[in-house]
């Protein structure tokens, strides 16, 4: 059995056992929704980390650092800074004011139907936006890591999480998150030690066949024989006739598919001078032989629609899209190809040196007839540019271009949303109800800050390790597991299993938050069903099953959709709709129920509205050129957050008389 499957199965077995064990504690509403308020602050602190460090943190940030350098680390900085807001502003008041849900705290002095409805909807919106990428992520992870199909991964996570939540609610969820948080931090540390111990090299893997540029050489070698036959089969399949010479223009570059010096390939045409490029094409399924990526062994009788450098391949990913090409010379001015073991600061300093050259392969996605083609062009960048902002954010500013207002605005919006979003995520806030008192809420937040801070420092080394070790895959999100693979199958299996467990922990928290919003906020309070304790638990469990099934369906339906932007929606809505309400309720005595409702509605609508007309969504969701978008920035925080605050103040001032009358 695959070792990753075995480790994951052991983890699932352990959490299911814990769920059974704790099921008896979840018979009351307090037991089910808030673990009876009896979780020790130390357990809650690590569970906070397990709840918060989702697949977006572990896989997304490492992937972004591996592909964009320091700009990915900005997320680590912003996400951690958000915990300062949670500790200094929200932690203790949330514990004092609330009972089971975020809406409880907002509504504690109003008993307003409007707040109950608006807060419940906002909780469900944020949770569903967060849930979809987690479920799709489970499906994406399961294929390369465990070898199953997408729907299997989604269903597996869904069923296990439904079981965890429906048996013992917040108690079992707490321990799943505690275990996952602890394992994630321990094994990420092990991986970082391994990375530093290996050091940096211009040929880190010593496996030439996996290098992107070597694919070109492979294509060369095969050009006279096997690859030629493959190309002929492809041309027949693609219904290409006559000369093989297609032209594509993408981003000002001209690519030519041509037979040149006996090699049929995609070429970069620069004023008539041709440079052969690595490429990948997805075409109609070809009845052909398939060559194994590593061994070069021909596997008979299979079909494939993935063509990499002219050869049909089983896998569909290019790997090794980044590597160190040149290391700084030593003190004697001699060339260095390998550093040996490094300390953490040495590692960072070499990677940020202007003499360090990093080669990255930039994808250009084009459509050629019925084929989807990605050609990769080499891009050389020095270390000093990789280790500052300017490769994803603030591009124009870093390059000294004019007209940089929206560039700057976008960056400020992102950093503001990261700062304000954390303390307003419902699935994080409900953890404050699981501890006995306000002091425990504070202490658990501080432990969470310590654990999360340590993990976010590790993300920089994990991401840069992937960048330096020539293992960055096309799907950058797989960078952390791929860097673990460099150190052997066992570490890869452990990291893969933890990546999968990461999804379990976060999804459990989201489903508990959603079931609380449905059973407690909507059914019991808003609809006035006044359920008994026992009925509320049954309603909570049924809601968890319902939300879990919906999550499975959405995870399968959204398989082919790029859903990472939904995490951005969740943060934008949380920061714009929820945080202004919490802050003003705590610090402004004139806040009214109408003001809170208006603030939630305006914050949600503005944040979502601006995102829907942003360049990123045009580009990735509507498949329309992002420059045609109605606005020129992607992050709405700089507009939606202040607008939500202003709305709350204005509406509260307008409704002072009504509030006094009530």
């Amino acid at each position: 059995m695959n070792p990753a499957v075995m480790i994951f199965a052991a983890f699932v077995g352990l959490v299911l056992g814990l769920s059974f064990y704790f099921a008896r504690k979840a018979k009351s509403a307090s037991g089910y929704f808030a673990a009876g308020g009896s979780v020790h602050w130390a357990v809650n602190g690590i569970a906070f980390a397990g709840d918060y460090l989702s697949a977006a943190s572990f896989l997304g940030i490492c992937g972004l650092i591996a592909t964009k350098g320091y700009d990915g680390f900005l997320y680590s900085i912003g996400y951690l800074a958000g915990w300062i807001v949670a500790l200094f502003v929200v932690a203790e008041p949330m514990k004092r004011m609330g009972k089971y849900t975020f809406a409880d705290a907002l509504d504690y002095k109003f008993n307003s139907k409007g707040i109950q409805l608006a807060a419940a909807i906002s909780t469900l919106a944020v949770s569903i936006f967060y849930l979809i990428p987690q479920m799709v992520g489970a499906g994406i992870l399961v294929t390369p890591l465990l070898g199953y199909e997408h729907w299997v991964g989604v269903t597996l996570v869904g069923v296990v999480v439904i079981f965890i939540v429906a048996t013992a609610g917040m108690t079992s969820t707490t321990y799943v998150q505690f275990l996952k948080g602890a394992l994630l931090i321990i094994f990420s540390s092990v991986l970082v030690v391994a990375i530093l111990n290996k050091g940096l090299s211009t040929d880190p893997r010593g496996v030439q066949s996996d290098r992107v540029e070597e694919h070109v050489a492979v294509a060369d070698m095969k050009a006279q024989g096997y690859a030629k036959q493959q190309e002929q089969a492809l041309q027949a399949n693609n219904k290409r006739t006559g000369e093989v010479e297609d032209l594509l223009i993408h981003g000002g570059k001209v690519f030519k598919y041509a037979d040149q010096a006996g090699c049929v390939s995609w070429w970069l045409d620069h004023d008539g001078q041709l440079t052969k490029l690595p490429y990948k094409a997805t075409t109609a399924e070809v009845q052909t032989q398939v060559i194994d990526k590593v061994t070069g062994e021909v596997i008979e009788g299979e079909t494939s629609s993935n063509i990499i450098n002219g050869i049909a391949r089983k896998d569909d990913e290019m790997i090794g899209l980044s590597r160190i090409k040149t290391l700084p010379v030593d003190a004697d001015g001699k060339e260095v190809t390998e550093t040996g073991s490094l300390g953490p600061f040495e590692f960072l300093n070499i990677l940020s040196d202007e003499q360090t050259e990093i080669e990255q392969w930039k994808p250009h996605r084009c459509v050629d007839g019925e084929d989807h083609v990605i050609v990769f062009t080499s891009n050389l960048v020095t270390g000093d540019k990789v280790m500052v902002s300017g490769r994803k954010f603030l591009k124009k500013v870093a390059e000294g271009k004019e007209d940089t207002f929206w560039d700057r605005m976008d960056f400020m919006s992102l950093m503001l949303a990261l700062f304000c979003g954390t303390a307003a995520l419902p699935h994080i806030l409900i953890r404050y109800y699981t501890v006995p008192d306000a002091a425990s809420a504070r202490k658990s937040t501080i432990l969470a800050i310590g654990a999360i801070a340590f993990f976010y420092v590790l993300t920089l080394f994990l991401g840069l390790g992937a960048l330096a070790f020539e293992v960055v895959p096309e799907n950058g999100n797989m960078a952390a597991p791929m860097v673990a693979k460099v150190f052997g199958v066992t570490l890869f299996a452990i990291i893969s299993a933890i990546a999968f467990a990461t999804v379990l922990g976060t999804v459990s928290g989201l489903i508990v938050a959603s079931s609380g919003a449905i059973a407690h906020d909507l059914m019991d309070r808003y609809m006035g069903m006044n359920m008994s304790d026992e009925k509320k638990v049954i309603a909570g469990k049924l809601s968890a099953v319902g939300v879990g099934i919906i999550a499975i369906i959405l995870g399968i339906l959204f398989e082919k959709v790029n859903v990472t932007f939904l995490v951005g929606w969740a943060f934008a809505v949380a920061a714009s709709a929820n945080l202004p309400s919490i802050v003003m309720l705590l610090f402004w005595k004139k806040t009214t129920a109408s003001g809170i409702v208006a603030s939630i509605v305006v914050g949600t609508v503005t944040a979502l509205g601006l995102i829907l007309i942003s360049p990123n969504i045009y580009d990735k969701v509507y498949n329309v050129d992002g420059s045609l978008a109605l606005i020129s920035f992607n992050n709405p925080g700089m507009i939606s957050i202040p607008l939500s605050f202003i709305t709350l103040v204005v509406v509260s001032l307008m409704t002072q008389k009504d509030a006094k009358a009530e």
Partner: protein
Amino acid sequence: MLHEPANQDTGPDHAADYKSSLGVKMFIIYALIYAGFVVINVIDPNIMKVKVVLGMNLAVFYGFFLIIFALLLALFYNMLCSKKEAELNSSNKSEGASK
């Protein structure tokens, strides 16, 4: 399993106002330092290339500083809050008992 019975009645928290006021002050300190990081980047990210401590460039140093400073500030906050809680809540309990 560190899963203990909840405190049924922890009583009023006489240190709540102190903690709230301290929290706001510390939040402002951190927010200003965070804003400084954002502003330097917005003016020109290339400023962050300058080497500062232990060979680290300003970008890495400032990033690490924000992460580590958050933890230090949190620990300091907890120390002050715990001290005040012990002082105010115990003195109020003893006053209550003497009455």
